């Protein structure tokens, strides 16, 4: 598996009063943090990549392919949401299995891959559990495992660790980094926490009022010479 480039080419989108204009490039195999105030369009940006929203105009490319008319399930993308990543009535194994087959018809090969992935994430022996029998962190791990067995080159994270405590959140971020090192995915993640971004991200895309206003390396963003709008957001300048 190899990460793919994501290109927003003057992508516009609107609903109700809100207008969005995204123009940015996420390089293949990078980890990019999407940051910005509430309502600035962070989740919308991810939803456009995942295919839950369709641009009004402009082009969205993943790899070299224009994503217009590509169904969410057909895109080279897995997304993990803040919550509700699992079907409450299905076991861990079934929830992950859906990543392999939407009809849940699993080959021995599929089952093997699932067991292996569970072991790698410290969830061994919990195949038959229901989501409510897991902790919040374990549930999100299961969602990550499913994203892995789907083998899509782009991983979108919409604040999946927001409801976890600080220590657990740091652990999960480390796991994501290890995953990235192993599989070289393109990872796009939304976060409110500057420390998460500086801990994990190589690049940052900053949004304001529905627009991509700044993009650059994480190092430059978090330095004294970072974009003014971003530093104002962080509260470093008035």
């Amino acid at each position, binding site marked *: 598996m190899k990460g793919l480039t994501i290109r927003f080419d003057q992508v516009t989108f609107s609903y*109700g009063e809100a207008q969005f204009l995204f123009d940015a490039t996420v390089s293949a195999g990078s980890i990019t943090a999407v940051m910005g105030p509430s309502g600035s369009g962070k989740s919308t940006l991810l939803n456009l990549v995942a295919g839950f*929203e*369709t641009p009004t105009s402009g082009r969205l490319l993943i790899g070299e392919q224009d994503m217009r008319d590509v169904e*969410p*399930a057909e895109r080279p993308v897995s997304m993990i949401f803040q919550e*509700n990543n699992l*079907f409450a009535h299905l076991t861990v194994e079934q929830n992950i299995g859906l990543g392999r087959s*939407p*009809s849940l018809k699993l080959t021995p090969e599929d089952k093997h891959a699932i067991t292996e992935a569970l072991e790698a994430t410290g969830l061994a022996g919990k195949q038959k559990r229901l989501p409510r029998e897991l902790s919040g962190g374990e549930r999100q791990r299961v969602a990550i495992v499913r994203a892995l067995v789907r083998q899509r080159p782009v991983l979108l994270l919409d604040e999946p660790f927001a409801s976890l405590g600080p220590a657990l959140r740091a652990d999960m971020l480390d796991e994501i980094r290890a995953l990235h090192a192993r599989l070289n995915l393109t990872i796009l993640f939304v976060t409110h926490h500057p420390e998460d971004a500086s801990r994990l991200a190589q690049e940052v895309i900053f949004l304001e009022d529905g627009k991509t206003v700044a993009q650059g390396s994480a190092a430059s963003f978090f330095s004294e010479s970072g974009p003014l709008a971003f530093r104002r957001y962080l509260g470093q300048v008035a």
Partner: protein
Amino acid sequence: MKAARRTPADPRFLGGALALGLLTVLIGGAFVGLIAEGARNPGAAWAAFDSYLLRIIRFTLMQALLSTALSILPALLVARALSRHPTFPGRHLILQLFAVPLALPAIVAALGLLALLGRAGFLAPPLGALTGEPWPGIYGLSGILIAHVFFNLPMATRLFLEALETVPTDQHRLGVQLGFKAWNSFRFIEWPALRKALPSIAGLVFMLCVTSFTLVLTLGGGPRATTLEVAIYQALRFDFDPSRAVALTLVQLALTVIILALLSRLGADAAGEANLSVAPRRFDFPSPRESIANGAILLAAVLFVVSPLAATGIAGLSADLQRLASEGSVHSATLTSLWLAFSAAAFSILLSFALVRTRHALQTQRRDAPPSLFERLTDRGAGYVLVVPPIVIGAGWFILLRTVADLFALAPIMVITVNGVMAMPFALRLIRPAHDAAATRHDRLCASLGITGWNRLRLIDWPSLRRPLLAAFAFAMALSLGDLGVIALFGSDAVKTLPYLLLERMGSYRTADAAGLGLFLALLTLALMLLSDRLGRSRQ
């Protein structure tokens, strides 16, 4: 524009469109029948607007008005008494008891009231001794009123209690702090909450009484105590006077439309049904005198509701149940009832599920934009099928088809469709919240994993919606099982349901048989209602 590429192919829209189409055909067909008959013979239809018709209209409205007043005023007192005493042994039982009449087939209730207060009822001897002359029984207006109060007082009580329980605990605390006596509490805390709920509850009861068919048919007795619905039935089944039926039906329709229009302005829900909630803690304690008064009110209400139920049970048990159980006609009526009710429930669930799914898909797609006409039809529009009473739909089709087909052979299809549609508002209420919550949780996930169509139904929707779907199914089946509406028009020796058989036995004065059948029917529907309640309540 946006997401437009997925619109035409989305099968969820197709389902809702199909359901609305079916509803349109069912209701539209009835109108075609009525209008065609009116146009064929306009003179006769006009001539039907005579003084007799006016008398029927007057009686319909008058009995509904009286029934409403007699149900609502005591219900206010009973609800207040229950709210003043939020914890006492048996309170929960009383609330459950008050849910029973709603689950009881109307014809069984009528039977119970006759067994109690009829000319030969259990209470006839003491009442006769009291009045000094032979007890005449409760046929006519008095019977209709008592029956309507029996159904609506408990329902209104539960609805009023619900309104009282929306009063924030802080207000009660405040009342205690300010030293409110019972009267002050009523005036400043309870009455404002009750007054807000009053118009919609009274409107609902009034509506139910205007469209009441079975109770008036069985207890009305004669042309002096006849409502529009019963007159429609008589015009079609006994007088073979379609012109009169057209006139009556149009009046009934106009009346229900007017009332429902008024009701919706009052914010009432035509499929009203109260939930048992947990009473909020209260900090004011009634004085001993008030407690005694409240106790007396509750006791009277409980006796009023229990005694017809008990009479149903006692009269039913004293019937020759063994002979009834071995009768071929009972067997075949039971089978007919069960398969018709089963099919009606299945039809109802299919319609409701299709509408719910389409509505949710449309709403999700449009976001903040105003809802389209299509969406509004799948939403409120479907609820307004209640505007058209079953008898009206039945009468329309009866008139439309009477020359071209064997009416009585059409009985099953009419019963299944009309009863299914009539149960729909209730089914919608059980299915929709669960469906919408589940869909909100699952839609994106399913889209991203490519779980669609049959896979989605099988793996995702059915497991998470099984309980509410089955609850709605049991409820719809119970409603249909006890219904004596369409079957009264279309029933015959070939197709007889239990309520129809019961009506026949009552008509031929085989009262003991009727009582036995009534008990059987009541147990069937109560079991289904109980099942529905269980399934609907306990969610994982």
